[in-house]
């Protein structure tokens, strides 16, 4: 029991943090204390998670291996950076940060559990909690109640997702008698040709695809995110994405291989649709958050297209793309944190006009990150794009390869508009002075990108060996 508690300690710490932050009594202007407390709890939890990474199954619900460690580290790092970047804004705008930090811990807790889960009940519960937590974040950011209709639609989608997940889990529980991954996999081996089983699995997968913002379920996220504020936008771009991808990959590798052949067509359709919708949607926006939200749809589409078979090679290629993509997105968000006007973050494209004249370093780095997202060499994004495209070429998917290249051109057009706004229009906005923390975050991100460009073995070989633990 004590041993289980020790192994469970990273989760316990997060649970305590959630309770204190969400239900404790706080003064409204205690921003720094709130962030300091969150940082300390997060770091303690991270250290314990790393020490006990190869924990045995806890109560038969979750496991720990090198695969879960990678995703947990990504989640913790993302949360730490987000806390670091957002703290000054909360203080400057006198907004209570407890709810924000609490939500962050909820995502961390349920995200980590989702990645490590080996039981469908736990996975479903975590996915549902993540969905409701996302809604909580959106409600929290919508202070002026400007996007009520949008958030209502989002809530309706969440309810739909919850029913689907619950329905699928109950059906499988009833049919299989068990909900642990191994048993379900065995069940699927025998029932793989059954239509009901196939439909149940699709019901199970759909909420995950919704959480990943894949088309045609993307609109809830893309439309709602355009009205949020930057810390929440960054949260959506990073944390749920990492957690859900971790859990989704785990589910596919551990449970779904018996019906992988059937699912492949479904995944490819969704992925191609997402790539197209994301690329075209990104071109039509005047809102920077919306443009990057659509780009996230495009990026998720490429990841799913690469992962579709969930073989070790697919996982390697998909992960490399995901990693460099997240790094570039984080870089872009850091740059957006550095472009403020009277303390408020900017989000309309017209507000960024001529930013290069006032903030040349930040805009130059933003350009680098955008080109990295586009996959242009010699930036690290090329490595990700190469992994994804090479995977298509290796498996003779030449039509999909050409489709991806064309869509890349379309996305290039969207980025061109941002570039034009930043560099080639006379500046009108007086930007606030960016604090040194933003520059530090951007610099560190750039250094990490440089290391990946010069020594990609770290990503393509060393991490691959760690990810392979999922297949053992």
């Amino acid at each position, binding site marked *: 029991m004590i041993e289980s508690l020790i192994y469970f300690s990273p989760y316990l710490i997060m649970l305590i943090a959630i309770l204190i932050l969400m239900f404790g009594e706080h003064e409204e202007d205690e921003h720094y204390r709130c962030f300091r407390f969150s940082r300390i709890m997060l770091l303690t939890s991270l250290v314990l998670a790393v020490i006990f990474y190869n924990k045995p199954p806890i109560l038969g619900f979750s496991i720990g291996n090198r695969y879960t460690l990678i995703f947990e580290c990504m989640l913790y790092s993302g949360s730490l950076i987000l806390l670091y970047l957002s703290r000054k804004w909360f203080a400057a705008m006198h907004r209570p940060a407890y709810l924000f930090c609490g939500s962050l811990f909820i995502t961390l807790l349920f995200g980590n559990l989702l990645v490590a889960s080996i039981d469908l009940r736990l996975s479903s519960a975590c996915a549902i909690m993540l969905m409701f937590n996302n809604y909580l974040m959106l409600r929290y950011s919508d202070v002026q109640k400007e996007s009520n209709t949008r958030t209502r639609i989002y809530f309706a989608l969440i309810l739909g997702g919850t029913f689907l997940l619950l329905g699928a889990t109950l059906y499988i529980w009833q049919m299989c008698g068990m909900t642990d991954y191994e048993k379900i996999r065995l069940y699927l081996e025998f029932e793989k040709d059954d239509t009901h089983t196939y439909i149940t699995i699709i019901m199970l997968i759909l909420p995950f695809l919704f959480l990943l913002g894949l088309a045609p379920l993307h609109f809830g996220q893309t439309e709602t995110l355009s009205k949020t504020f930057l810390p929440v936008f960054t949260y959506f771009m990073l944390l749920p994405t990492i957690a859900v991808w971790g859990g989704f990959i785990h589910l596919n590798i551990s449970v779904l291989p018996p019906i992988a052949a059937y699912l492949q067509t479904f995944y490819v359709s969704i992925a191609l649709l997402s790539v197209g919708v994301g690329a075209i949607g990104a071109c039509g926006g005047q809102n920077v958050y919306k443009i990057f939200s659509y780009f996230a749809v495009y990026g998720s589409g490429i990841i799913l297209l690469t992962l579709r078979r969930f073989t070790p090679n697919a996982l390697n290629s998909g992960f490399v793309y995901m990693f460099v993509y997240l790094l570039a997105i984080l870089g872009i968000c850091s740059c957006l944190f550095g472009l403020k006007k009277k303390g408020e973050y900017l989000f309309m494209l017209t507000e960024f006009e001529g930013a290069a004249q006032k903030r040349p370093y930040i805009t130059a780095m933003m350009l680098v990150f955008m080109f990295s997202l586009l996959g242009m060499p010699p930036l690290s994004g090329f490595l990700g794009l190469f992994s994804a495209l090479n995977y298509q070429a290796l498996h003779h998917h030449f039509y999909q390869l050409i489709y991806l290249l064309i869509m890349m051109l379309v996305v290039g057009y969207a980025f061109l508009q941002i570039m034009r706004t930043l560099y080639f229009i006379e500046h009108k906005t007086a930007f606030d002075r960016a604090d040194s923390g933003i520059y530090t975050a951007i610099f560190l991100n750039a250094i990490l990108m440089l290391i990946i460009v010069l020594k*990609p073995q770290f990503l393509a070989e060393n991490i691959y060996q760690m990810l392979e633990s999922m297949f053992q």
Partner: protein
Amino acid sequence: MTELLLILLIIPLLGNMFVLFAKKNDTNAFYVAIFTIAANIAVVLRLLPPTVVNSAIPPENYTYHWLSNAGIDLVFGADTFSLLLLLSVYLSLLIGMIGLLASQRKSKALLLLTLYFMWNITGFLTARDMFSFYIFFAGMVLPLFMLVEMFGSVHKTSVLYVFFSLGLVGALLLLTATLIIYRFNHGNVELSEIALVSIPKYAAMVVWISICLAFLSRIPIWPFHHWFAVINTGTKNPLVYIVVNLIPLTGLYGFMRFWQLTVPESVVTFLPIITAFGVITMLFAALIGISFKDFLPKLFSYSAVYYLLFLLCTVLLDAQYEKNIAFSLFIFLIVNATLTVLDLWSENACAESRCDYRGILAYMPRLSKIFTFFVLVAVGLPISSMFWNNFVLISALFKINFVAGIGIMSAITLICMSVMYELFIMRNLKTIGSAVAVEDISERQSAFFMAIIVLLFLSFFDPLWFVLS
């Protein structure tokens, strides 16, 4: 020697870093950029002699183990051909730097982007494998576009969008070819071994068509010529003009490296089409050159005609003419850069003195002498090695395709006459209304260009006279 190749690639990056952290509104960054280019010239001059002396032995390559498990090692090497091109590119950039006005020298963004472009073109010209070739080919898109947008004085957004899209499409086409070759070779392949990779017929077609289109998109051949013309004629910054003028070189160099490596028969069937398009575009460029009233647009037409000449030489002639093309290109690039700078100086002097551009050279004796020499070199008079090499190349073209030869010769004659006429106009004192005081170029500037004149003139006797054996 292989370490020198690495140094060649590192110096521009270091220069970039120093420029980045240099003081604002100061000329420090400018001198760092000059020093960076000069340092790379010194390294090239150190690398050249062994390749000239041991031309029969393949040069030693530098290999960077980039992604071993995927079979991607980046290979860099340099033979006489690529080193000569590098030298001419560096000299062109140096001339462009010298040509900058005092206010332009303080622009850190301009210097940063130029050095970043220089790094990319250095990597491109020394790349010996498919991947590094692609990486640096695509890497040039960003600095080129930024330079044109920020300093190119091109105001039409649609033109800039198409220019960027062309660069991106070219890069994507080469990426497609790279991925297909990688797929069938199960790893990266050195450029010299591409012919050995076994690729099915249709895949080979896709590869070669992609490669050809990728390179053609950077050469001012129909239908791509229009965008180059608009970009070039709108640019008034000498350095940007010179950098933009180096884009066709990248396409041309791509053809040089790939075409000689046994192009499949299926692609060779397209050769007459490329030849026809090339000759027709040459003639059009020459005729349009005549219609222009200023020297700089004429110079663009001139460079378009010559780039197309070199393209046709590459695709029509054997590998034995490679050195002639290299020697001729070497002189051509330097002459082009110098004439750009001198013309922009004279235009600037005109604007300052509010005098007529026609006849301006009569008031600037130093500039006039230098300008005249370079125009005479450009039109192919026997005062540089360009004369010999063009003679050899054009006579070989006549031998292979007489009709094409006639077309090429007509285009060259037309454009040379046009340039000569413009020189006559600029020197003709009668066209100036009243006498005005125009400031001539300084003695230091004059000495710099005299040194280049000596370099070119001595090349008439030995194209590689500056290489110490």
